[in-house]
């Protein structure tokens, strides 16, 4: 290996607005920003626009298992594709300097660098971890993972499939699998009563379109003959070299693939790494960035939109993306405050409508404490470093006050995922052990590089003068 000089660094290309993520929020923001005359850069880790909800929609739109769910995204993707902008798919943001507005990205094993006056994080949601005993066994996946395999490549799990957990995605995926010729068994962990939740939370009338869609999915899955086991507790994936079944209190279901899901939470890795203020959302049981009505964060250059701001689904994401773009145009002096506010009204109305059913859904599908903080000592919490619930409780008992201390004690959150997956569980277990609220124990503080990069990429960045060869 030797060091060879590379060509002199060039000044990075500059944009009015850089958008991180090409899901519904990012695409809608790009469309609105272009309407306001801003120069726009969109970077996205995935190979095509759509985010997770409309992932590979341009491919999957003709797949009968998915067509009806992808249709609303195709129009948005079409309008996004037609924009006069710089769009870099397949580019992974590994560092963002909010003070200078510099984005460093990994793209085809090279480093790209851009600068922007405003930056919008539209990085979406991730699934909540489901740390049950045995969840690291091959053959156990998140429900979202199976859905992604279906969207991206038309794949379905072969053999017996058990879907376990709760949330709207569970019923949607069940329907998609059934349309694709796979009949799963659903082991539902929901503990809240539908009727009582509806009476307490409301939103049933204003959120009726979403509710009707959800009820339709439930009815269709049952009509197709899907067996549903309700109120399951103490889930445990069993098997030696791979999963062979799911055990729960009072039952056992043999399976070849086990798909787990307990809802989604904002993907806050980057917003936390750049030090934005976050607060604990007691209703959605997650951290989220502190934002104003336009999505502006605690940093003057940065806004956040979509499910990365607050879980609301794709229609809410579109609305928040539009609001953030209007605010960007205002802050850059391209739109008067009155014009911004006038144009924001339609988006604000759409946002209200999109979020109408959310309090009901959040309460109905609230994860149980045994999912948030697994009781069994041997359950793995940090999949990367294989840290168990028992060792975390020990660390908390001898003085680890929060996730960042526990990291130093046990390496949890120090593996390649950098605590993306275990973060919520680590915090919940420490909070439970210390008998304090989760917001008091805090969260991991991620750092750049947000994803591992090679030394070559680092050396080859515009700041690096040499390249390894």
């Amino acid at each position, binding site marked *: *290996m030797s060091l060879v000089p590379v060509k002199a660094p060039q000044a990075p290309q500059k944009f009015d607005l850089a958008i991180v993520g090409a899901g519904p929020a990012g695409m809608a923001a790009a469309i609105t920003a272009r309407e306001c005359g801003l120069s726009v850069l969109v970077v996205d*880790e*995935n*190979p095509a626009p759509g985010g*997770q909800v409309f992932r*590979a929609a341009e*491919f999957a739109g*003709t*797949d*009968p*298992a998915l067509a009806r769910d992808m249709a609303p995204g195709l129009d948005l993707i079409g309008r996004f594709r037609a924009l006069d902008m710089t769009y870099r798919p*397949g580019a*992974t943001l590994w560092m963002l300097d909010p003070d200078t507005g510099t984005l460093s990205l990994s793209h085809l*094993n090279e480093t790209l660098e851009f600068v922007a006056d405003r930056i919008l994080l539209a990085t979406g949601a*991730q*699934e909540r971890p489901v740390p049950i005993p045995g*969840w*690291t066994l*091959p*053959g*156990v*996946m*998140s429900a*979202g*993972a*199976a859905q*992604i*395999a279906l969207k*991206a*490549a*038309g*794949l*379905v*799990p*072969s*053999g017996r499939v058990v879907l376990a957990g709760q949330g709207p995605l569970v019923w949607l995926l069940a329907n998609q699998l059934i349309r*694709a*010729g796979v009949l799963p068994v659903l082991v539902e962990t929901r503990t809240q009563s539908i009727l009582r939740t509806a009476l307490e939370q409301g939103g049933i009338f204003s959120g009726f379109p979403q509710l009707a869609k959800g009820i339709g999915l439930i009815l269709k899955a049952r009509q197709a003959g899907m067996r549903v086991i309700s109120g399951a507790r103490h889930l445990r994936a069993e098997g030696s*070299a*791979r999963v062979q079944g799911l055990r729960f209190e009072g039952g056992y279901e043999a399976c*070849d*693939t086990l798909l787990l899901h307990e809802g989604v939470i904002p*993907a806050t890795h980057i917003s936390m790494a750049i030090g934005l203020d976050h607060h604990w959302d007691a209703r959605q049981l997650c951290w989220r960035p502190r934002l104003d009505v336009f999505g502006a964060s605690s940093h003057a250059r940065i806004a956040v939109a979509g499910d990365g701001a607050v879980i609301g689904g794709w229609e809410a994401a579109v609305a928040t993306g539009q609001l953030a773009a209007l605010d960007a145009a205002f802050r850059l002096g391209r739109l008067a405050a009155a014009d911004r506010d006038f144009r924001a009204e339609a988006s604000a109305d759409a946002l209200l409508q999109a979020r109408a059913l959310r309090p009901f859904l959040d309460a109905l599908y609230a994860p149980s404490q045994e999912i948030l903080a697994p009781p069994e000592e041997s359950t793995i919490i940090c*999949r*990367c*470093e*294989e840290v168990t619930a028992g060792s975390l409780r020990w660390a908390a008992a001898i003085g680890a006050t929060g996730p960042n201390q526990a990291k130093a004690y046990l390496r949890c959150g120090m*593996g*390649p*995922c950098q605590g*993306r*997956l275990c973060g919520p569980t680590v915090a919940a277990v420490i909070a439970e052990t210390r008998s304090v609220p989760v917001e008091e124990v805090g969260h991991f503080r991620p750092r750049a590089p947000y*994803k*591992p990069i*090679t030394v070559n990429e680092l050396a080859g960045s515009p700041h690096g003068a040499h390249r390894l060869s």
Partner: protein
Amino acid sequence: MFRTRPDYRPETVQVFVEGRALMVPEGSNAAAALLIAGLPAIRETAISGSPRLPWCMMGVCFDCLAEIDGIANRQACMVPVAAGMRIARQHGAREVPR
């Protein structure tokens, strides 16, 4: 294990999983190719050597780390397949070339 649905995704790309040629649907990523190949594991963990397959398929969990076209520790779920791509399992921690 996962199976393809060629009626709906007819276009395929040839990749090599652990040296074995495999036709996978266009739009697949390297992790999907491993799922189609039906390997018992994509990697063994660096800590205990336990077998893993992908958990999230969306770039969060890093359980699908694999060696792709000779580069280890890549998130297989984030790498779209390309004709001739070589995808190999990863055993334990990545080795640093000397």
